[in-house]
């Protein structure tokens, strides 16, 4: 096997990392012409990585240690790079002159980290991939604005993020102690998955390890009680960057959680299932109720991002169900929803970043008052994103919620957590209704209020283009969700089936279930 053949499966990541070096080097140039070429170059690198993803369909990872490629990897690569292009467009004018190299280089690092998270097959690689997503975002928060709030937000984000990463890797150390190897899955030989099949997830090391690892990952996806940083960080960072903070770390966190749950055969011990159940309920309720009390739109959207993590937790708890439609598969619903969420969240923040009130970036509800008179297109885009976040047709947010909730409602009665999961979905539906209040308030300020003075449209062609794509995608994905849904569905084929393995695990310790009265 030649070196080229060996490295071919990681061509998208390599393209990004070589691009990072180029962008960092050009960033220190003294010539303004070179520095202004950095953003277009970043776009070229992202498109190059997309081309590389399309070309490397033959994914033989035998030459690479610690990596494995399956349908989930492919799906995450496509959505991350496509969203990466939109994130770049919206962030086009964020860095001050002279900092473009650092800012866009770090953005590419973060995107490469998500791609690696999706192909990690080793606890060390998984840990490093997640850190590659997070560490650049801490620096980007500090770079995105020059005022005190940004540096405070960066410090807060860094310390809580570093702590969560340390807790997660502490959990990984117990999983290593259990299995004696850091390999997650292997067709033969030692691996975590094989160890879990042998001892089950009731071993003390397994419970402690999974508990700590999940606690660390819960921070990345902003689940209660690890959500405290989100409102402050979202408020401190520049609006376009906030769209990135709500998508890349969340996606990496959910992909890592899906991988971890696959390793333990989607058969968590009951104590951990109940813990995640309580966390999901608390996340939905906290996020929605606290969002009602805010007047700063960035903080509203931060709490809304927390509640959306709660909805996605439902799909994660339901788990993958093979062989049936997308309406039954919890993990496919999560994978679909996270794309929708990333788009509508980015759209809402892109509207905020495109507006100036008396020289300051728009932030509060009052700043948005009368937007429909001053900038009708922006107001329409904001309304589309708000309705989508609310889960109201004809927007894709509606379909996302339908898939998530129906996955829980269509669980078979034989599922050991059938009752609690249906209850969870009911709580989710009620919470969507509570959420409608503050999303409607945002839309109402845009359309029904008298405009204040000093509201001005700023930004340029590129952020406007990004915003247009985000809001159009909401409508297009509502009319034609089939392609994305089918891709999400086939991505879950590689992460196993919760029902099948649950029966297999139960069958190992009790007599075959068909002999027992149902």
């Amino acid at each position: 096997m030649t070196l080229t053949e060996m490295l071919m499966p990681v061509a998208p990541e390599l393209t990004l990392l070589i691009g990072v070096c180029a962008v960092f080097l050009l960033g220190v140039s003294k010539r303004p012409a070179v520095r202004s070429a950095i953003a277009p170059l970043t776009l070229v690198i992202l498109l190059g990585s997309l081309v590389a993803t399309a070309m490397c369909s033959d994914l033989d990872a035998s030459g690479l240690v610690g990596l494995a490629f399956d349908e989930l990897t492919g799906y995450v690569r496509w959505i991350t790079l496509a969203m990466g292009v939109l994130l770049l467009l919206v962030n086009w004018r964020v860095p001050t002159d002279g900092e473009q190299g650092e800012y866009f280089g770090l953005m590419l690092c973060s995107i490469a980290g998500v791609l690696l998270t999706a192909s990690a097959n080793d606890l060390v690689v998984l840990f490093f991939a997640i850190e590659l997503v997070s560490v650049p975002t801490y620096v980007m928060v500090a770079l995105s604005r020059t005022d005190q709030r940004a540096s405070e937000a960066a410090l807060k984000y860094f310390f809580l993020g570093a702590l969560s990463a340390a807790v997660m890797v502490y959990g990984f150390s117990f999983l290593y102690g259990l299995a004696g190897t850091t390999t997650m899955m292997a067709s033969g030989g030692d691996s975590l998955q094989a160890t879990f099949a042998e001892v089950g997830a009731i071993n003390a090391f397994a419970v402690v390890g999974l508990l700590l690892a999940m606690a660390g990952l819960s921070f990345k996806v902003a689940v209660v009680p690890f959500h405290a940083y989100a409102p402050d960080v979202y408020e401190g960072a520049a609006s376009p960057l906030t769209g990135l903070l709500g998508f890349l770390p969340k996606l990496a966190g959910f992909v890592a959680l899906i991988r971890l749950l696959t390793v333990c055969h989607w058969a968590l011990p009951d104590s951990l299932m109940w813990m995640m159940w309580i966390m999901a309920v608390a996340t939905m309720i906290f996020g929605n109720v606290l969002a009602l009390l805010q007047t700063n739109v960035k903080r509203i959207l931060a709490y809304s991002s927390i509640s959306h993590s709660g909805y996605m937790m439902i799909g994660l708890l339901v788990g993958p169900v093979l062989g049936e439609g997308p309406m039954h598969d919890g993990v496919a619903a999560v994978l679909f929803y996270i794309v929708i969420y990333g788009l509508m969240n980015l759209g809402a923040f892109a509207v905020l970043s495109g507006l100036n009130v008396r020289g300051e970036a728009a932030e509060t509800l009052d700043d948005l008052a009368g937007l429909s008179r001053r900038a009708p297109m922006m107001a329409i885009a904001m309304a589309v994103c708000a309705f989508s976040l609310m889960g109201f047709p004809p927007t894709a947010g509606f379909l996302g919620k339908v898939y998530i909730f129906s996955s829980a409602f269509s669980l078979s009665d034989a599922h050991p957590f059938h009752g609690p999961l249906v209850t969870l979905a009911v709580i989710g539906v009620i919470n969507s209704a509570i959420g409608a209040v503050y999303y409607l308030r945002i839309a109402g300020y845009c359309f029904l209020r008298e405009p204040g003075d000093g509201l001005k449209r700023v930004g340029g062609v590129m952020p406007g283009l990004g915003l247009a794509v985000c809001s159009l995608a909401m409508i297009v994905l509502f009319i034609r969700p089939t392609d994305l849904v089918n891709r999400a569905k086939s991505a879950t084929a590689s992460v196993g089936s919760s029902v099948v393995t649950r029966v297999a695990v139960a069958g190992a310790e009790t007599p075959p279930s068909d002999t027992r009265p149902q």
Partner: protein
Amino acid sequence: MLTIGLMHYLVLSAAIFCCGIFVMITKRNAIGILIGVELVLNSVNVNFIAFDRYSQQPGFDGQITALFVIVLAAAEAAVAVAICMNLYKNINTIDVDRGDALHG
């Protein structure tokens, strides 16, 4: 005669872990909090190396992981100090209680 076994190392690492968390909660100086993070990461290293030493499997996964974690800790410290410098330029202190621009 007491033999030192795996459990002793696990208790040691748990103690270091708790010390790290305690330092992070009580310190008000940003560098002090960073030291807390380093303590937590080092408890992870103790765990990995102890598990490696007492493991029945061949291979050195644990020791190699510990090396990687050390590298990561160094990289994180660099980022932390840069962010502290940034804060110092803005408010002339790295006391985290003095940062109150965000009403959280």
